[in-house]
Structure formats: C-alpha cells, structure tokens
C-alpha cells in the first residue's frame, strides 16, 4: 500500500474515532504531524463531515489539535450553514411551485434530512436538492422545471442533453432511468428530479417508489413546510443509496447511524412489511446497519437484527467496504461490484452482466451521437422539429475537431 493510501487510512481512522466519541473529553488522538492534519482536513471534506467534525472538536479540550485545523473547519462550518439555509429556501420555493401546479413532490435528503436528523441546518453538509415526483407526472414536472429556469445538465451515461432522446416522453428513459439533473437558474446548485430511487438493476434493493406516497409526512422548515418521506422509508432509502454507492461518503453512514440511535422512533412492523415485499431492500439495509455498528459503534436494535439479518453476501460486502475504508481511507464507490456481490438471484445476475457488456458500445454511441452539448447547439440554432439533425452535426464536429488536433500534433512532432 502506498504512503498516500496509508496516510488517508490513518486520517479516516482518526475521523471515525472522533465520530464514535460523542461526548466531550480527550479523543485520545496520538500526536500528528502537520501533514497528517492536512490529510485529516481533506478526508473530512471528502466525506462531507467538516461541519460535524468542527462541532465535535469544539467540545474537546485537547490542546494537541492544531488551531489551523480548527480554523479551517470553522470556515467550512459557516459556509455550510449559509449554503444549507439558502438551499432550504430554494427547496420550499420549488416544491411550492410544483405543488401549486398539481405536481406531487417529496423532498429527499438535503436540508430536509438535516432538519430531521439534527433539528437544523448546521451539522449536515448539503450539496444539492433531491425531489421525488410520481412517474406519471415526470413530464409535467420536467416542463415546470424548465419553465422556472432550471436547465437539464450533462452527465455521463445520461442522454438527457439530447433534445430528441432526452425528452421525458421517451418511455425508455422513464422505464430504465431514475432522475433528471437540473442546474438552478443562477447556477448555484443542482436539483435531481427523481421518479425512482435507482435504475432498473438496483431497484429491487430500494423501497417501492409507488408505496412511499401514502406514507409521506409533512415537515416544517423555517421557510415553510414540505412533504417528505416517513422515517421508515427514509431509513430504507438511505441504506439503499449508501449501499449502491458502496458507502464512499461517510456522511451517509452517519445519517443511518443517527436514525438507528433512536430505534423507538421507527415503526419496525412497517419496516418488516416493506422488506418482506422487497427483500433486496432488506439486504441493502443489512449492509448499512452492519457498517454503522462496525465503524461507528452504533448498537444494533433487536428489531433490526431480527428483520435485517446478515447473509453471507451482505456480510461479505460490508466486510469488504469496511476493509477499504480503514486501510485506504475510501471505498471504491463501484456500483458494479457491489451489485454483483449482493444480487443473489441467478437470472438477475446474468441479465445485469449481459446489459453491462453492451453498455460500453452504447456508452460510446451516446457520447458521440446522442449527447448533444452546448458546443453543438452553439454551432447552429435549430427549430424543435429539426433538432434531430444535431445527432449528425455532433459526430461531424467531433471528427473535425479531433482530426485538426491530431494534425497539429503530427505537424509539431514532424517539425
């Protein structure tokens, strides 16, 4: 293992020790070099825990913590406070607009989750807004988002940019995909408009998105009230999300841990019903609960141990993730390997691997032909009925650009 990996592993272990120790006192950190503290600050940022770490460090009296680190984290804490508050204002405003037009919308994660877990916006760093709409209202919601000035943004593996292919009417994207990502009108934040928790292969591991609506609850934020997931759906959805991303961000694990610390606030009979219908969701939750117990020393409630039992597969996945985090400071975040390890149904595994084999040429096709970018639209403005021509303009532009670049390189080398 390289020195960098080793130092990141040290920083992550230090971070976990701090998170485990919730009350004041000396965190019993060994003395660290200045570079170690820089690694620690970087790890806090990468795991999006700087505000929480700052708050915890305030309670400790250890003089071994350098003032530069505390000051760094204080700046992060204050930035996060202001940003989260602003995000929450935008959340209330956007959901009100959608609801006024008859679109049902749920808030997921973000400022809503910060308020649920911590009673405020200070301790949980939020980056964007996640909204869930009903599948049959995706088209209407997407139109409303655009009318409010939110623009779909380009991301790899998503054909949203194609003015023809990405139109929400395209049932393929709605069937197989899960979200459209938007950039706010002022360019300050993203909004992920979901209609599923995950794409088709991961869906068995998530809550049933049709069922969450009848259990949704109203939440009061300082700026207004919103609709959000009930605590049980939230718990299962967070576990599914974290497991899918291999828990590369410890903030997500902390979210689950905070919910588990108040097990009486969960209706375990409801969770039993949900995981009976979706055993995959139970498996994903089992991974989350195992990691919360192993890494953050959260007691596993008796009901969780009964309803979310560990299997060989979930145990192996949790163990591998734990090993990655403790040794290198991060997990790979690889959805593919996680799904293959967790998926126990042979037919589903075969289907997934087959789809993945075909994904690369599909991805290539998408990048060259399907994904229309601002550079393509900037060449010529086409009316809506002629937008399909962008799929010819784009490959021509790419061929020309790369040919010129190759010719220049060849000329320079030859000269």
């Amino acid at each position, binding site marked *: 293992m*390289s020195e*960098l*990996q080793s130092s*990141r592993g040290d920083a992550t272990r230090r971070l976990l020790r701090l998170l485990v120790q919730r009350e*004041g006192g000396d965190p019993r950190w060994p003395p660290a070099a200045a570079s170690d503290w820089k690694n620690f*600050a970087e790890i806090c*940022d*990468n795991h*999006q825990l*700087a505000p929480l770490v700052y*708050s915890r460090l*305030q*309670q400790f009296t250890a003089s071994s913590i350098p003032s*530069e680190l505390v000051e*760094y984290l204080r*700046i*992060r804490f*204050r*930035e*996060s*406070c*202001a*940003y989260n*508050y*602003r995000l929450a*204002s935008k959340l209330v405003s956007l959901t009100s607009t959608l609801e006024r037009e008859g679109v049902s919308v749920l808030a997921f994660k973000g400022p809503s989750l910060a308020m649920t877990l911590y*009673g*405020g*916006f*200070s*301790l949980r760093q939020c*980056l*964007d807004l996640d909204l869930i709409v009903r599948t049959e209202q995706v088209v209407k919601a997407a139109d409303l988002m655009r009318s409010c000035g939110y623009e779909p*943004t380009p*991301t*790899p*593996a998503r054909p949203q940019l194609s003015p023809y292919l990405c139109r929400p009417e395209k049932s393929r994207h709605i069937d197989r995909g899960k979200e459209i*990502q938007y*950039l*706010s009108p*002022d*360019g*300050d*934040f*993203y909004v992920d408009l979901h209609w599923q928790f995950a794409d088709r292969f991961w869906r068995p591991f998530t809550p049933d998105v049709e069922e969450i609506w009848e259990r949704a609850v109203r939440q009061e934020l*300082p*700026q207004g009230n919103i609709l959000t997931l009930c605590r049980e759906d939230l718990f299962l959805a967070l576990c599914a999300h974290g497991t899918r*991303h*291999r828990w*590369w*961000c410890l903030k997500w694990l902390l979210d689950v841990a905070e919910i588990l610390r108040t097990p009486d606030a969960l209706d375990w009979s409801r969770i039993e019903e949900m995981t009976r219908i979706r055993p995959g969701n139970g498996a994903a939750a089992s991974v989350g609960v195992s990691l919360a117990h192993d890494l953050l020393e959260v007691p596993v409630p008796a009901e969780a141990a009964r309803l979310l039992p560990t299997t060989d597969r979930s145990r192996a996945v949790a163990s591998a993730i734990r090993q990655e985090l403790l040794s*290198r*400071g*991060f*997990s*790979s*975040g690889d959805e593919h390997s996680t799904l293959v390890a967790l998926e126990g149904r042979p037919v589903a595994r075969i289907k997934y691997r087959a789809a993945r084999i075909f994904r*690369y040429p599909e991805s290539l096709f998408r*990048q060259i032909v399907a994904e229309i970018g601002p550079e393509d639209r900037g060449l010529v403005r086409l009316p809506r009925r002629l937008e399909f021509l962008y799929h010819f303009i784009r490959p021509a532009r790419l061929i020309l650009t790369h040919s010129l670049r190759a010719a220049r390189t060849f000329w320079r080398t030859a000269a």
Partner: protein
Amino acid sequence: MKPLARKSGIFAENLPEEVVLYDKTHDKVHNLNKTAAAVWENSDGSKTIDELTRVVAAKAGAPEDRNLVLQALEELEDAGLMEVGVAREAGLPSRREAVGKMVMAGSALVATIVAAAPKAHASPGAPGDPPPLPTPHNPPPQPLPPIGFRPPGGVHKKH
C-alpha cells in the same frame, strides 16, 4: 435600560458550543458563541444589564463580566438581532471600536454569515483557506480513486 432580543422571524439552532440563528427577515445567518447566545436568549426586556450579567455568568459558568455582556449586546444590535439594544451616546465609538485593534475578528462574539450565493466564495481566499464549498462551478469531490486507478474515461458522475 432593559435589552430586548428580536425573536420573530428567527430560527435558532442550539449546538453544544454555539447557537446558529437563521434570520428569515433579512436572509442572514448568524453564529453566536456561548456568551452572545446566553445574552440573546435572556434579553427578554425584563432584566437590567447587571441582572443580565449575573444570569449570563451563571449559565456560562464563568465570572461576571459586564463589559463582555455589553460587547455582546452591541454586536447583536449590529447584527439586527435586538429590538431594544444598548443605548450609545451620540458621537462616542462603540465598545468594539474603542478597544480597536485588540478586538480581532477571532474574538467577535457574533459572526454574521450572509446567506449569499456560494459562487461569491468560489475563489479561495488567503493561502491555507479551505477550498470553496462544492457548487456546480466547483463539483463536489468524487470518491477518492485507488492510487493508479484509471477510470474508463469521462467525468465522474455526480452523486
């Protein structure tokens, strides 16, 4: 004079070592240390400065410091968090101004963080300042890849 804190339009988040106030009226966020928080919470219009000093000292578990309470009241007033604040005589500098360079930014009891657009803070400030908060102009950090890992190509997907 009996100070009275402004509570309407304000959401208070109590943390172990400080209080964060979200001022919905002026769209600002304020960070109060323990002393300032105790002063703000107990300024109910019924206590004189001396009574407030005793209450704040008892809550903070610290010796009574009237000047500190007055400084807190001035800073709270400057932040727009008081209905009735410290009466300043015309022409005289505030306590903070009088102390001048001895009161550096780090000793402020009330820090106002304007809930401004993050892109205003996109560029790092002084060397050693933390990198700007992730925004669309500065995408959030991706999972740290293994050393030597070569992604298949393209931008990492935002999570």
